[in-house]
């Protein structure tokens, strides 16, 4: 007769969290207007629509190459610029380099940047500079600074202080200390993070294109809006390939860098 009691006591501890959790899920589902009928309907419609999307219209492929390269170019331009700016922000945001007021200002700026999704930045920049790749590049540069700046600042705060001391001892100026004692220590992690960011920027660049930064994302939305679904399939496949290649490429480069470092 005891088992029911024991079980109850064992599980009653979890009852409150589970209940709260279930209520939260129900509330969220209600907020998102989840409906299984819509889902079933969507699935049926989706299966029917597959016919519209296939076979891909490969003739459009030739017209997709230029936009695809533009998407890559936006990321390729934004990533190094962002990395260089991130070093400046990182130096200004590290407690062992910058005075307290500067560190505080920089850190809050970086945190602010990370709080704003790139797409929102782009919407603002498009309002200022008009549609086009330029606004996209700047949006991604700012986004890259937000991520890399924090990583660089954190890395600088953790560098070996003895190196800095010894370079200072031989009479180096502040700039020389940074050049010969600080930067070499954070450089490897910066390069690895920059490559990762390039991958992120390619994804973001596809997304930004859809809002007006041009490139493959733009082609995709235009094709869907004009109901040219078979063309849209080609655009989707191309953007998938871009992301895949970027992921592979940065993986390979990173592992090669790690191998090169081990040799040294």
């Amino acid at each position: 007769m005891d088992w029911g009691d024991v079980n109850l006591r064992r599980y009653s501890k979890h009852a409150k969290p589970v209940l709260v959790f279930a209520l939260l899920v129900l509330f969220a589902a209600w907020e998102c207007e989840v409906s299984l009928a819509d889902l079933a309907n969507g699935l049926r419609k989706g299966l029917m629509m597959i016919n519209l999307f296939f076979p891909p219209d490969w003739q459009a492929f030739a017209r997709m190459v230029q936009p695809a390269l533009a998407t890559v170019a936006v990321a390729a331009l934004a990533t190094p610029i962002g990395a260089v700016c991130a070093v400046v922000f990182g130096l200004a945001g590290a407690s062992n380099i910058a005075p307290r007021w500067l560190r505080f200002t920089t850190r809050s700026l970086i945190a602010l940047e990370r709080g704003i999704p790139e797409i929102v930045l782009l919407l603002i920049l498009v309002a200022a500079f008009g549609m086009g790749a330029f606004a996209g590049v700047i949006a991604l540069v700012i986004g890259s600074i937000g991520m890399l700046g924090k990583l660089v600042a954190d890395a600088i705060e953790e560098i070996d202080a003895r190196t800095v001391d010894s370079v200072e001892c031989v009479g180096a100026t502040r700039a020389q200390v940074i050049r010969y004692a600080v930067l070499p220590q954070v450089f490897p992690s910066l390069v690895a993070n920059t490559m990762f960011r390039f991958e992120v920027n390619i994804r973001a660049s596809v997304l930004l294109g859809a809002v007006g930064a041009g490139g493959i994302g733009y082609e995709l939305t235009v094709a869907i809006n004009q109901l040219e679904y078979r063309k849209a399939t080609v655009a989707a496949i191309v953007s998938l390939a871009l992301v895949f290649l970027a992921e592979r490429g940065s993986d390979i480069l990173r592992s090669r860098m790690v191998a090169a470092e081990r040799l040294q």
Partner: protein
Amino acid sequence: MSTAPLQVPQTVMPSVIFRRRTVTIVAGVSITGVALAMLSVNPFEFIRDFHFVVNLVSQMLPPNLELLWRKTSIWSSLVQTVAMAFLATLGGAAIAFLFALLAATNTTPSQVARFAVRLILTTERCTPNIVVLLVLLIAVGIGPFAAMLSLLVGSIGMFGKLFADAIEQVDIGPVESTAASGASRLQILRYAVLPQVAPSIVANVFYAFDVNLRAAVALGVFGGGGIGFELNVARSVLRYRDMLACLLVIIVMINLMERIADHVRRRIFALETELK
């Protein structure tokens, strides 16, 4: 007989570091140049057109904070955005766990299933969110449900691989001892595998919630509902002061959710150590 002094050939060899540096700089400059030419972007435009930015900022200030109490739909759309991220993260994690069991070498029932699931996960991970959303918008219709589903699909791709890797690294000892005491396959999962992967699952779920929250704002812009939609509406009718108010609300919301998630995570980990 005179011997010529030994001549050491003096070739000027650039050092490895110098050569590597030159290659890097040349490659960097040429890539930048090609990219600039291809996009026909003039970097000085940024300075020349900077007055546009100043102009825009002056139009945005001061933020129209009256909006917060005059237009109550802001609050409900804010809650909607959070709800989208929350539900997508949970649903994604649950489905991804099932996928991960199929995709991990040590728990998969068959190699064919393992290969198929890995293929699906890779494809999903590579598909940009926007592609999924555009397709779902047509299938399910405009609204938060479509955005939530597309976030969910993205989360499955992200989680699936991470969970599968975590399951593959499980310590075999507990699994074998549970099996030796006559546990069924399901019981092995429950008592030997799950306890080992739970910490990494929890950590990843919180990370994904953070990512999904930002993505939920972004997808709103494309017709996924929520606060991103409000922001885009304010922009397209050129009410920049309303737009800045929305932006401030978004920033506060993301920071607040980060804090709450941090708090909950700390509570969960405290509970776990207590149980041990």
